[in-house]
């Protein structure tokens, strides 16, 4: 993967038009990452565009120094999200898209409504976590990355990532309990 990236980057550094291949390879991942951080499709569209614009503008400076291209892109996306939070000084709203989920087959409507409400409360709590912790949870659960990959993106050791993850779970649980949510089962209907 890294070797493949290296070839594509070297090509794009010589010919800007070759950037299209990198875009094609990473646009879905960056969009998903940003959407999970902001909870809004319009903002995800805006910040994904900014992320690729910045990557394009800085591609000449990119060199492989132990950090893969994907990690570099995630860092750009993370910084775009941090700036978005700072500039707007607001907490993201949980989007309607995330709340409109299909009722599962055989599920009673009231169960489905409760599940949606709990999911909404959980997403809201995630978005209230410190930025680094949101970053970690999204990379782990939505992007499905390994600890080594997350460590490269966040500039931490795998051990530090594991500790941060555990502390994040404990703090998130405390936040949810304060909001009256029962988190002692897995919420599966």
């Amino acid at each position, binding site marked *: 993967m890294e070797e493949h990236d290296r070839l594509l980057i070297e090509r794009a550094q010589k*010919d*800007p*038009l070759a*950037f*299209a291949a990198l*875009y*094609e390879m990473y*646009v*879905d991942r960056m*969009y*998903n990452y940003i*959407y*999970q951080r902001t909870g809004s499709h319009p903002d*995800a*569209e805006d910040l*994904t*565009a900014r992320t*690729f*614009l910045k990557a*394009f*503008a*800085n591609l000449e400076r990119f060199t492989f120094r132990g950090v893969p291209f994907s990690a570099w892109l995630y860092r750009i996306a993370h910084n775009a999200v941090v700036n978005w939070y700072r500039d707007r000084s607001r907490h993201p709203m949980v989007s309607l*898209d995330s709340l409109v989920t299909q009722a599962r087959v055989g599920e009673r409507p009231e169960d489905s409504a409760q599940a949606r409400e*709990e*999911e909404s409360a*959980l*997403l809201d709590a*995630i978005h209230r976590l410190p930025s680094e912790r949101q970053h970690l*949870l*999204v990379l*782990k*659960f*939505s*992007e*499905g990355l*390994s*600890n080594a990959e997350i460590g490269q993106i966040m500039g931490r050791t795998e*051990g530090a*990532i*594991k*500790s941060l*993850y*555990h502390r994040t*779970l*404990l703090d*998130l*649980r405390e936040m*949810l309990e304060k909001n009256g949510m029962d*988190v*002692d*089962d*897995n*919420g*599966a209907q």
Partner: protein
Amino acid sequence: MTMEHNDVAELPMAHADQLNSTLPDEAAGLTAAAAEREDLLPPLHLAERLKRALTPVSPSESYRRKLERDLFEMARRSARGEVVISQPSPSRGLIIGAAVALMGGIAYWIHNRNLPEHELPAGHEHSAAY
């Protein structure tokens, strides 16, 4: 799966990795193993909720194609030398801050210049005094 991951920080992450794997039964095995430790079970249940809540999404095809066209156009113009892609200029706040700092420095310099030598702060004596 037994309690091989008995380190408190190791088990939740091993469980998260299993949730991401294509073999979710292994995550259930870890959860069952964690039942021996009452304090570990709730975080693992929370992780299972997180996994469900953070379901991946994709951009719409129209958005994806539009952004591709925009980037392609920019790349084309960049290749022809019609545009130079550069970092945005410093923000207005930064420029104002720098200007205020510069004016403060000038005011301080003028103030010190007009003081008699014996009232100058330590370290600001004119070199001629030596």
